[in-house]
């Protein structure tokens, strides 16, 4: 038995010898475990780190064309996609130990996720927010007249949460694209991924890697949180409402604070998708969305609203999903649950079972649960960890009303219906807060350049400096060639 040891944090500007590193164990006591060495940081350390990465960015990425950044990320991601690369091997080996997810699911998930960060996808990512990406490099003519240039923050702070592998990549890359220096606080649940990305970036473009520092502390340390936010122009935070509110309280008014709270997502399955030739594949795709990372993502489904009146009834469709979940369980077993998770799942299941018109289908080992609800139509959360609610509705058009009370809590809706209905439903759902409509089976893999929670990933980070047309005219008067 060997236990891997990994450092958490990339502390530019600090002498690692001077840091006190504390061990934290991941994985069980059995064959597979991993020791994380976490830095014991003080608020003053954060200032040193922040100054260092800010300086590094000023001397490097701030002066570069954005295309160089794209190339560096592309080459980094190419290495991470290469299954023989040592860091990729490490990810495949260690992430299942850290997060508990099945190895095969992690491997497939990594590849699917990373390939959305190749150069063409990154170009799309930028163009979504900046139709003329040159605005990140130089003043560009504006449609209204005059010129404009986008400046990224001098320092972007990130506070990541949760154990969905790779989550930090979204905001880390967004920071690089707007040429910001970054200090990211990694999540206790999965503190390694960001560091590994940093290390491979250091292979492909060492100067760029020096603009990213990674730190860690036990969540809720208000002194360090305040210390980090004081240094940042813009702060991005992930977490539940309580955690976000606590973090927001630490950000000074001068720091732009952007939050991604926990969300709930769902799917709509129309009667047209419920004929005998389509229902099985519809169920398989729906089950796949449930299985991916055991529903831990904000885009993961909690409920499928299933329309009555198709050849296959909502109840039967529920059993189809159950079958698909059973076969996925064979292929990608659910990660082991903590006692608290298992116990709250039991409570959820009991509540579902006792609802009028409710029925619960699950295997003896309890590794997944389908709750079929023929009467209760409310949008309620699943018990997570491969538990899904199948809610029968007369018409899909009822579902926007059902989700309306939760406007700020909902995110993705998958729709399986005709093109006409897709657009009419999407517009109704958009009104009640849905920010992403996708296909069944794709809920957990947003497109490159998606507007996370309906916001602009890059535009929200920058400020635009404009040269008004009048300034140009006035300058003309002072030109050497002026009459």
């Amino acid at each position, binding site marked *: 038995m060997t236990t891997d040891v990994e450092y958490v944090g990339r502390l530019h500007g600090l002498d690692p010898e001077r840091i006190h590193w504390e061990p934290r164990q991941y994985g069980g006591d059995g064959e597979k475990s991993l020791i994380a060495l976490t830095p014991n940081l003080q608020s003053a350390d954060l200032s040193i780190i922040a100054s260092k990465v800010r300086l590094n960015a000023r001397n490097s990425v701030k002066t570069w064309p954005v295309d160089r950044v794209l190339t560096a990320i592309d080459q980094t991601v190419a290495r991470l996609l290469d299954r023989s690369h040592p860091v990729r091997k490490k990810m495949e080996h260690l992430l299942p130990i850290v*997060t508990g997810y099945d190895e095969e699911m992690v491997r497939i998930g990594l590849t699917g996720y990373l390939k959305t960060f190749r150069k063409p996808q990154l170009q799309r990512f930028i163009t979504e927010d900046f139709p003329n990406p040159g605005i990140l490099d130089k003043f560009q003519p504006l449609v209204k007249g005059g010129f404009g240039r986008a400046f990224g923050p001098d320092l972007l702070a990130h506070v990541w*949460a*949760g*154990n*969905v592998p790779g*989550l930090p990549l979204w905001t880390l890359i967004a920071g690089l694209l707007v040429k910001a220096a970054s200090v990211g606080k990694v999540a206790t*649940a999965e503190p390694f991924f960001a560091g590994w990305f940093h290390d491979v970036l250091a292979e492909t473009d060492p100067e760029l890697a020096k603009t990213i520092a990674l730190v860690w502390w036990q969540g809720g340390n208000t002194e360090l949180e305040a210390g980090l936010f004081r240094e940042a122009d813009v702060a991005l935070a*992930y*977490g*539940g*409402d*309580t955690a976000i509110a606590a973090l927001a309280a630490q950000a000074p008014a001068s720091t732009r604070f952007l939050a*991604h*709270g*926990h*969300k*709930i*997502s769902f799917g709509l399955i129309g009667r047209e998708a419920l004929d005998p030739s389509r229902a099985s594949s519809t169920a398989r795709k729906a089950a796949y969305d449930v299985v991916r*990372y055991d*529903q*831990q*993502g*904000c885009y*993961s489904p*909690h409920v499928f609203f299933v329309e009555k009146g198709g050849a296959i009834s909502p109840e039967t469709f529920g059993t189809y999903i159950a079958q698909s979940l059973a076969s996925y369980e064979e292929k990608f077993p659910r990660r082991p*649950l*903590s*006692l*608290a*998770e*298992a*116990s*709250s*799942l*039991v*409570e*959820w299941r*009991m*509540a579902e*079972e*006792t609802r009028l018109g409710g029925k*619960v289908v699950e295997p*003896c*080992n*309890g*590794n997944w649960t389908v709750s079929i609800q023929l009467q209760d139509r409310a949008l*309620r*959360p699943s*018990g*997570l960890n491969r538990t899904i609610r199948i809610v029968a509705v007369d018409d899909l058009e009822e579902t926007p009303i059902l989700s309306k*009370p*939760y*406007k*700020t*809590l909902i995110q993705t809706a998958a729709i399986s219906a005709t093109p006409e209905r897709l657009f009419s439903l999407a517009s109704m759902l958009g009104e009640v807060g849905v920010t992403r409509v996708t296909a069944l089976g794709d809920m957990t893999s947003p497109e490159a350049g998606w507007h996370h929670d309906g916001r602009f990933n890059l535009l929200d980070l920058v400020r635009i400096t404009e040269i008004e047309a009048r300034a140009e005219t006035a300058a003309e008067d002072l030109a050497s060639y002026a009459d």
Partner: protein
Amino acid sequence: MDEAEVVSKLLTFIENKNAVEADFDQMALSIFAYQFEHNLPFKKFCLARGKTPKTVRHWADIPAVPISAFKTLDLTCSSPTSAEATFMTSGTTQGGKRGKSYHPTLAVYNASMRQNFLERFMGNREKLKIGILFPPPVAMPNSSLAHYLELAKQYFGSEGSSHFVRSNGIDYERLFHSLEDAEENGVSYGLLGASFSFVHVLDEMERQGRRFQLPPGSRLLDTGGFKGQSRELELDTFYDALQNAFGVSRANCINMYGMTELSTQFYDNGNAVCPSVKSGPHWIKTRVVDPLTGSSLPKGTTGVLAHTDLAHFNIVTTILTEDAGVEVDEGFMLHGRVSGAEAQGCSMAVDEFLISAAAN
């Protein structure tokens, strides 16, 4: 069997100190059959799991009902309206819904309490001067703990035994006077109550600079933990403080573990060492299980506690708690509550959704 027969058999069983595992098994299976027949929500629960009196062959196969079900289902074999007592949980979780246990008669509950308390707290002594740090049943008619403590006073309290908590809080003056009196006259004293009330008393004694040296034979009984109603103390700190404040050694500070969803209590043999080992009498058995499957875990593995309490004959005998624990020789050790899991990622967990949706 009808109710009268069940009650009479149980009263005999509780008295039968020579009962062995096979007797327990037989009694458990016959009560299971009784509950399956008369308690319809429980029958539905069993059928959904393929369990019937025909398929359940051993007490450990009786399906454990999660305690959350006590909040949504009317689990009872008799009509709730004719119950002698209805005990309810405090309703601090799940949107204020309270779990209910109906008792058509308290005869079994009282017999269970009496025999067990006599042995485990009284040390088979007949009387003690008893002080109670909890409101009396008139103030809290649906509290099983209020009833339990009242029984302690009625059955085992000598003259001058009293409650010291009223609607306006703890009556420190009367309490301290009563303790002083016992101290001066060399009368053994039993002080019983909610753990958090003890913390309030400790704080007040500290404020007044008071200490007691209760006479030999005195004992303390705390129960229920701190529940956010007082400072949270480490167990060692708590029992050290009790020993120091009342002059009762930690070995004579007993912790009772009970639940509204049971008719029998568990005790430890003092808290000289924490965490202590808890155990119950011969009519209750505890398994440490995987909550998802209900199957027993090997000794030494932490799981969730499932109790089979024959005295809870009118509701269900077998409950799945939200308490983590581990089986050891002579009983089990408690490892605290397991509920309230948070989502690991950026999705939403049920509790969080309820809070956020309410704030929306």
